[in-house]
């Protein structure tokens, strides 16, 4: 191998001509020399006018050699030297001709370098556009909903059924586990504190009110963001990539009517039920802890729970989760429909759907707390 290793010699038959003579193995994997080699030589021979190649002794070559030659040619052009390709074999020449047949596109992609201030301004503007687009999207959903309310169903019943199933039955196991554990954790924290005051039985109040007003809607909204919001974004995003959404548009079927509405309706209808289910399972989790650690009997726990929790608490939770469900579905669908046209874009749309979904939910929760506080509910 070593004996046939690539070799390059620079021969100068006359003052104006430089012959680049290559021999041995010239494959990309052979750790080929850098074309910068030539630049050095050029400095040494300032009177050069022409470059020629000599390649007869090359034993083996692949595109490694060709890209080397292309780079050399480029350097020659930059130094306004003539290049004679006569010394190249016929196969090399034809490949090189093909490579240069279509001129390289100028300013293919320009990434303008911006000052910090300019990029800050750019991002702020982008944020504003994003907000505007979001508002447009919400407006379009509202219009579609009003059309639906007038009895014009424009999506497939089958789709709605599928999404409802996906938001309900299929989500139950994860909701079960998380809610049960949430109830358990709440009860644990409460038990340690309340027992110190001999008020262990109030664990039931803590769990019931804590779950129904706050933890259940919030946790379920977060679960559904990761589960359903993300899948909405991925589904719509890949439809965007495949031009399926364009195909809907040119068939004059609104993607909002056909794709977004059934998804939103399914999640908004089902998430309150999941929330109620979560309340129940959480209370059971609390009961388990009270029973094993505080030795509160099941009947006493249930009695305490029913006397502490009011319809209002449950309703607050349900209304919250309705609202969260809407936000999660909107975030997912919005990101999906505004996805770029690559598989990469689908990934980032999914991530964005989850991040924005959770953000919206937390912000909405805070707003709810403030309003409920003012209204003293």
């Amino acid at each position: 191998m070593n004996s046939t290793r690539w070799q390059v010699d620079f021969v100068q038959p006359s003052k104006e001509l430089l012959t680049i003579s290559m021999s041995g193995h010239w494959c990309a994997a052979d750790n080929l020399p850098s074309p910068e080699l030539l630049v050095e030589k050029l400095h040494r021979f300032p009177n050069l006018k022409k470059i020629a190649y000599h390649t007869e002794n090359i034993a083996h070559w692949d595109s490694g050699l060709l890209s080397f030659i292309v780079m050399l040619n480029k350097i020659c052009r930059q130094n306004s030297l003539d290049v004679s390709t006569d010394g190249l074999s016929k196969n090399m020449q034809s490949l090189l001709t093909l490579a240069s047949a279509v001129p390289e596109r100028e300013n293919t992609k320009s990434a303008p370098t911006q000052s910090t201030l300019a990029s800050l301004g750019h991002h702020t503007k982008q944020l504003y556009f994003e907000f505007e687009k979001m508002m447009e999207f919400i407006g379009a959903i509202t219009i579609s909903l009003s059309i639906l309310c007038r009895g014009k169903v424009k999506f497939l019943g089958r789709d709605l059924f599928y999404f409802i199933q996906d938001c309900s039955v299929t989500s139950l196991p994860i909701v079960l586990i998380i809610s049960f554990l949430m109830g358990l954790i709440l009860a644990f924290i409460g038990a340690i504190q309340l027992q110190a005051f001999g008020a262990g039985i109030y664990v039931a109040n803590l769990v019931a009110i804590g779950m129904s007003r706050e933890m259940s809607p919030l946790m379920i909204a977060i679960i559904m963001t990761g589960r359903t919001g993300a899948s909405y974004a991925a589904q719509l995003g890949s439809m965007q990539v495949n031009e399926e959404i364009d195909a809907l548009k040119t068939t004059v079927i609104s993607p909002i009517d056909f794709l977004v509405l059934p998804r939103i309706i399914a999640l908004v209808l089902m998430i309150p039920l999941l929330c109620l289910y979560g309340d129940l399972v959480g209370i059971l989790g609390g009961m388990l802890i009270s029973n094993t650690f505080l030795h509160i009997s099941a009947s006493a726990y249930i009695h305490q729970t029913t006397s502490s929790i009011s319809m209002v608490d449950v309703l607050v939770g349900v209304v919250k989760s309705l609202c969260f469900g809407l936000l999660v579905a909107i975030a997912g669908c919005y990101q999906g429909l505004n996805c770029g046209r690559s598989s990469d874009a689908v990934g980032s749309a999914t991530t964005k759907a989850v991040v924005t979904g959770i953000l919206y939910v937390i912000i909405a929760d805070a707003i709810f707390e403030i309003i409920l506080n003012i209204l003293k509910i």
Partner: protein
Amino acid sequence: MTMNVMPIEQPPIQVKHLDMAYGGTIVQKDINFSVQKSEILVIMGDSGCGKSTLMRHMVGLKKPVAGDIFYNNEPFWSGGITQRENRMRHFGVMYQSGALWSSMTLAENISLPLQEYTTLTAKQIKEVAAFKLSLVGLAGYEDFYPAEISGGMCKRAGIARAIALDPEIIFFDEPSAGLDPISSKRLDDLILALRDGLGATIIVVTHELASIFTIADNAIFLDSERKTLIANAPPKELLKHSTDAKIQRFLTRGAEGVIQP
């Protein structure tokens, strides 16, 4: 045709001073041409010159930077959205990638526009869908999902969907790319039959020389370097009379000119 729910109109299409761009990057400038009723127009040009982009402008997916398209003398983009959507109902569009709705079977893909815009019964819709599939050589594939068929078959199913409503104007983006010669020939026959039988106006993006010379009544040539339309004539005339080296090379598969760096 009983299924033709739209009133038949004269659709001369006129594209006037159309400028197209993505972001700030101009794709094509100052495009002017018109299409007569029941004419087959071929859009030619090198890969990446903006043929699909031109189609996206003509079917209402992308707003031009300047200029407009006139259908029956009505501006397409400067008019309102309702007007545009009414116009779009008369279009059938086949996408370069097929763009079938992946959650639906082939039959459902074709049925959806029918359900939306005709008063046919479910049984009639099923029959029409089966018929359209058989037109593109996909009889018996009604219940297949797009993921279960090959790329060329997806393309053909996309064609079947584009002609589901017997539209007045049909847009095909590279319908024969990726098809075998026989399917490709059948497709030419289908395009001619759609024009002759239904009087459809057809706009086809294609590189297939054989098919260009068989079907085209007229052709336009977009150039990616000059970024504008450089020819507008029937392809046979272009071949005979055009002095533009690029067009000559294109129409003769590069035989005439030498490939030059």
